[in-house]
């Protein structure tokens, strides 16, 4: 679309700018402020320079949380993206089944995150939860409150349950946008089902898949409520991801300085990876 040059457009954008800046700029400035200072209360601050940043970047605790976070996000992406695509491919394209599928699949997305955590907390309990009870009945010694492996398993399963539908919906939208003529031409060309997926469906879904990967990366990297309600970060700190660790430090221990420094490092990592993704996405758009 040809856009007209109009500086007055800033008036249109002003409400948005103010509201977001209000919420973003001011808190961010506070955080930056704290990250360079030390306080012992009573609003008295001492300049500390880059001490907090060095401390965080060298702390084992931070490395632990960061490592766990990356591993968690990696597993999430590797499971949810292919799974979401596979489910979208198997969904009907028309008929009453479409609304039924879409409505039922969207339900996990609309449940408050603490309820998701609580639901799985109970669902996976060995004594009274369906999952816990069934697994133990099959002879598997399963107790997520005490075993790190079980805790990870349950957390991942919960996130798959919670968010895969988002990937499904996005992939499905991408699939529906492919005109019939492509499938017809492939039929005439004698293409196999795999060939159709590889050469028609996957390329045409590239844009929505990039959005799906971006969203899932961001949200899983920032995850807080669900695992917190499920395991509290435990057993020990087995499932303490970055956000959980940060909140513990900031609101729990009130170590404002280190918490602020960690916040900035955290934010910076997310921004960096998203910036790379964003550019990849824009580059693809320009190409096509």
């Amino acid at each position, binding site marked *: 679309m040809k856009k007209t040059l109009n500086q007055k457009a800033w008036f249109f954008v002003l409400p948005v700018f103010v509201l977001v800046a209000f919420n973003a700029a001011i808190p961010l400035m506070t955080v930056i402020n704290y990250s360079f200072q030390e306080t012992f209360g009573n609003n008295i601050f001492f300049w500390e320079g880059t001490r907090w940043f060095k401390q965080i970047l060298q702390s084992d605790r931070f490395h632990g949380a960061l490592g766990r976070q990356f591993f968690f996000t990696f597993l999430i992406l590797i499971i949810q993206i292919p799974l979401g695509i596979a489910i979208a491919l198997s969904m009907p394209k028309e008929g009453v089944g479409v609304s039924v599928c879409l409505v039922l699949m969207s339900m996990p997305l609309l449940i408050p995150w603490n309820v998701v955590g609580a639901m799985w907390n109970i669902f996976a309990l060995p004594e009274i939860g369906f999952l816990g009870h069934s697994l133990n009945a099959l002879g598997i010694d399963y107790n997520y409150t005490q075993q790190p492996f079980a805790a990870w398993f349950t957390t991942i399963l919960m996130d798959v349950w919670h968010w895969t539908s988002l990937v499904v919906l996005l992939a499905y939208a991408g699939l529906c946008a492919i*005109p019939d*003529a*492509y499938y*017809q*031409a492939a*039929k*005439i*060309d*004698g*293409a*196999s089902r795999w*060939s159709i997926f590889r*050469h*028609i469906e996957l*390329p*045409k879904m590239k844009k929505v898949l990039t959005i799906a990967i971006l969203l899932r990366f961001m949200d899983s990297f920032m995850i807080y409520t669900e695992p917190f309600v499920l395991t509290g970060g435990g057993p020990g700190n087995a499932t303490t991801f970055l956000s959980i660790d940060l909140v513990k430090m900031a609101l729990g221990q009130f170590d404002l300085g280190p918490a602020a420094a960690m916040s900035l490092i955290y934010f910076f990592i997310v921004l960096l990876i998203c910036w790379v993704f964003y550019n990849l996405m824009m580059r693809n758009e320009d*190409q*096509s």
Partner: protein
Amino acid sequence: MSKISLNNLSHSYLVQQNNDLDWALKDIDLEWSDGGAYALLGPSGCGKTTLLNIISGLLKPTKGEVYFDDKKITHLSSVERNIAQIFQFPVIYDTMTVFDNLAFPLRNRGISEDKIQPRVKEIAEMLDLSETLYNRASGLTADGKQKISLGRGLVRSDVNVIMFDEPLTVIDPHLKWILKSKLKELHQEINRTMIYVTHDQTEALTFADQVVVMHEGQLVQKGTPVELFEKPKHTFVGHFIGSPGMNLLPCELMNGKVNFSGAKIEMEKKISSHKTYSKTQIGIRPEFVSFSNSGIAVKILKVNNAGRHKIIDIECDGGKLKMISSVTATTPSGTAYVKFNSKYTYVYGDDWIVEE
């Protein structure tokens, strides 16, 4: 190459049909011989794409049969029929090079690489794609992409018939002309049956040896472009073909005599039938109306100079007409008389031509 025959073909997209309107195609009977260039012409929604998809196997008809060379193929899949179809917008495999796109149908059929190489190069040469052969297909312009679609159809040596579904829709006007000529050229070179579906009469009339005109799911007339122009068998053909279309005005038909605008109209062939119709019209193309000293009294309304000729709006008791006269001839002003060339004057009863 194949002779294509359609027998009593009817198709409806609905599960149950209650009336005429529920049928997309009504009782089509058609035969196309080997190697010809045919056009399916008609306005949007007349059923031509439906018909095309039934011939190519993408759609199974509700009633009737399709034959290739007298072999019934109504229920065979597209792959089994050995056809090629080019769609309205270019369908290419974005991730592959032009070469791989053209080779795709051959590779899927298990043909060996050493046979594929020369074949693809040959087709690329024919379509002027040799330079871009190793570029990514997605980088080509719209007409280049359509050529790739065409190429994928031509590259298979066993193709019976090639079908085009309004292939020039997304092409820029100045490139349309080049591509049109290319298609005609190709047909003469490879001599395969080609069926071209369009709503554009220029495309149909320049490409095809024979044109089939469709209207509301029915086959209205089949003939050469000249036949369609000179003797339309249905009012729709008269009005759709030619620019401006045929003049169609109410007239009276009684006992084989035609009365129009108070005058008796002479027809070349006498009408002997005594059938009655709810609607009778007289049809005469603007090209066949001329000024004379006597005949039908008309009032000259407007003279439009269209460059190559003049289009004159005239009015008589029977209604408004258009006539075409040469740029150099003098046009009378005010009132005059016109006569119709009896060889090209026809009467239509309930939209169909009345003969004998």
